[in-house]
């Protein structure tokens, strides 16, 4: 199973149409990867689908970086009892 970081990068790459190899944990979704507001919503929905979790939208949209998303999703997966490869 791929790690959370790999899966977050894969989803981000698909939604934002960027090369996954170029995505770094410190990248900001908006500033560095060009995410517009609508794409932020799409990212949240796609992470929920990828990991089988439910995220509170305002908390999720407050996450700004790829690394922040990995940490946030890890916490949610643990809280919701979803098995993950860290």
């Amino acid at each position, binding site marked *: 199973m791929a790690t959370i970081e790999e899966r977050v990068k894969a989803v981000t790459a698909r939604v934002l149409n960027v090369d996954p190899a170029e995505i770094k944990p410190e990248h900001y979704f908006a500033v560095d990867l060009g995410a517009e507001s609508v794409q932020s919503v*799409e990212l949240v*929905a796609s992470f929920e*689908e990828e990991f089988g979790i439910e995220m509170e939208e*305002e908390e999720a949209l407050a996450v700004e970086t790829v690394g922040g998303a990995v940490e946030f999703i890890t916490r949610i997966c643990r809280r919701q009892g979803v098995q993950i490869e860290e």
Partner: protein
Amino acid sequence: MRLILVDRSKEVRSRFHPLTLSRPIWELRTGFTSLAEKLVAKTGAADVACFVPDYMAAAYRAKTAWPVNDPATLAGDDLLLVDPRVKAESFSVSPTGPSEIAVDDEGQVLYARVARVDLGALQTDDVGKFLSAAKARLPKANAPLPKWEYIWHLMLANPEQLSSDFAAAGRHGIEGAVEEPSAVRGAKKDVYIAPGARVHPMVVIDATEGPVYIDERAVIYPFTRIVGPCYIGKESRLIAVKCHEGNSIGPSCRIGGEIECSIIQGYTNKYHEGFLGHAYVGEWVNLGALTTNSDLKNDYSPVSVIMHGRLPIDTGSNKVGCLIGDHTKTSIGTFLNTGAYVGAMAIIMATGKPMQKFIPSFAWLLEGVVTKGFGKGQLYKTARTVMGRRGCKWTDADETMWDAVFEFTKARRDELIKKGRRAMQKL
């Protein structure tokens, strides 16, 4: 005699969604006035009380002078309890007289006239128990009593209601200002322009097929054509509108483009071009430029509406446009399908294609799929801003009411959000 309006049945109320998510049925309009105003006028009641669902009681209390959900109103006088769906024009029951009750085929009490002397035999601490006891004890009235069945019936009856309300109002003539050159077609007795209303030059008011009533402080901008029957509410503005027959525009609206046989509850903006036909639109709605609804299918067959997000309901009419709940916003270029149901507090971002026929409350429709969007907190923030611009206040009671609406519309919305997530993976 005290008139008591009762609107507590969840199932009945759902037939008037999405407008009744945030108001009792009697606040709905047809013609010039609300269903409550019609019933009060018909019964001549000076003392009025009401019972609404608990979740909206505090919010509604702030909007009315009537006692709301007060059990004390079930005692101390002759009572006439009425279901707001009862058509006022057909309600010929004497407000006072011996106790009697009328119940429809579904067991809903349409009215209960309870003489003061009989109150002791009924429990009076809860309106539900009161009505149950009344059903068990009071003699039944058997005369048929027409009632409004679904929300679109208000809109479809709007032209006739407008004409009868104009006659009942008994006003005609020009008390506001009409700037030349403007044209009034038809008889002057079929037009009323209220004090403070202003009609700019190059406006045509066509009353040949029905009356036109322009209420206080409304402003009609140049190149507008208003065809009667029509009612323009207080402080509303029409900006170069093709205003076809049968429209009721509530107070403080900004209307542009083309509109036909529609009811707009109030405080709504449809400033730009775009067609709204056979629609019922709530309050604090903003329709972006070019937002357009279809109100006729290509095969001219009856329009169906998906009221609860599941089974379509046949309206029996080949002319039904859209239903839009309070605080919903559409982006530029939004196309709404024939018989579209758009819930309250929804955000629609157009795709260039007609939207799906059911859009749940609190949905953020992006790329044609239902998402959580930025959440209800952002919607409340916007509502607070929008209301503040018109001198109205978003209150804690409003928020509590909308929180309840969010919860009871959640199940179907969540199903569609899940479906939307899967659809997004394929985009």
